[in-house]
């Protein structure tokens, strides 16, 4: 009786573990596909699109996760194949530094204008 009980517990733990693992993977899959641009569609992510290209990319994400690749490695893979454009989040480098800094410059400049108008007369 006791043996059976232990066996049952192990059995259930195994099943739950498995389904949890699958659920985690699909969550990660969705997250990654939301962060990748569908290059053949207009303004859609891979997650949103059902084009041939997007379907293949989703399949590759799934396979890579099954192989045990990390999220970062998968982004690196797509970046090496398609360039940085495929990532929705632009990295900070020489080309994009202006993009990142410009809002801050505007903010500071605007602050300066307001300051000048109200406090220095």
């Amino acid at each position: 009786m006791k043996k059976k009980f232990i066996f049952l517990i192990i059995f259930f733990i195994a099943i739950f573990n498995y389904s949890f693992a699958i659920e985690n993977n699909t969550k990660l899959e969705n997250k990654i596909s939301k962060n990748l641009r569908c290059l053949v569609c207009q303004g859609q992510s891979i997650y949103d699109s059902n084009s041939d290209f997007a379907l293949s990319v989703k399949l590759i994400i799934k396979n890579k996760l099954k192989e045990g690749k990390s999220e970062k490695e998968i982004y690196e893979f797509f970046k090496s194949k398609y360039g940085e454009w495929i990532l929705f989040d632009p990295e900070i480098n020489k080309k994009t530094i202006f993009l990142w800094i410009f809002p801050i410059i505007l903010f500071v400049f605007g602050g300066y204008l307001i300051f000048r108008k109200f406090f220095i007369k």
Partner: protein
Amino acid sequence: MKKKKIFFSVILSTLFIFFILFKGLYNQNYYIPKNTTKNLISFKAEDFFTKEKLTSDQFFLNNKYIIINIWASWCIPCLKEHKYLMSLRKNNNFKLIGLNYKDKENNAKQFIKKNGNPYELILSDRNGTISIELGAFGVPETFVIHEKKIIKKYIGPLDQQNIFEILRITKK
């Protein structure tokens, strides 16, 4: 005086923006991966006719140029470029490989039978993953590969000019 200043600054900024956008209009942003050793092409594929599993090292001979053409029987522009591919058929400078993209086998066979087979080797890409591995967007697309590196990429159907270019590149 102030009006004039505003007027000129508006015109200047309009011109500035116009030129930046105009310059970008003709920029092709085809991405060709940097030729580092990390980005060497390698993939596994299935032979279209014999169903034999091949790795890319088996048909990427070292100093020979490889041309990979992605095609499908359902793709209309592929039909348009087919006659140009046929003209590339008998050439010892390179090896022409076809990659059959998301196609039904019977349709693809029919296509080859009807229009001729320009390829030395046809690989099948049932789910489109090999094309992604190459960095392709869809069909038709053509890659010129040398020493496992992509040196030229044509997106869309080839025309006579592209063929001349391919012949010129592979002559070296």
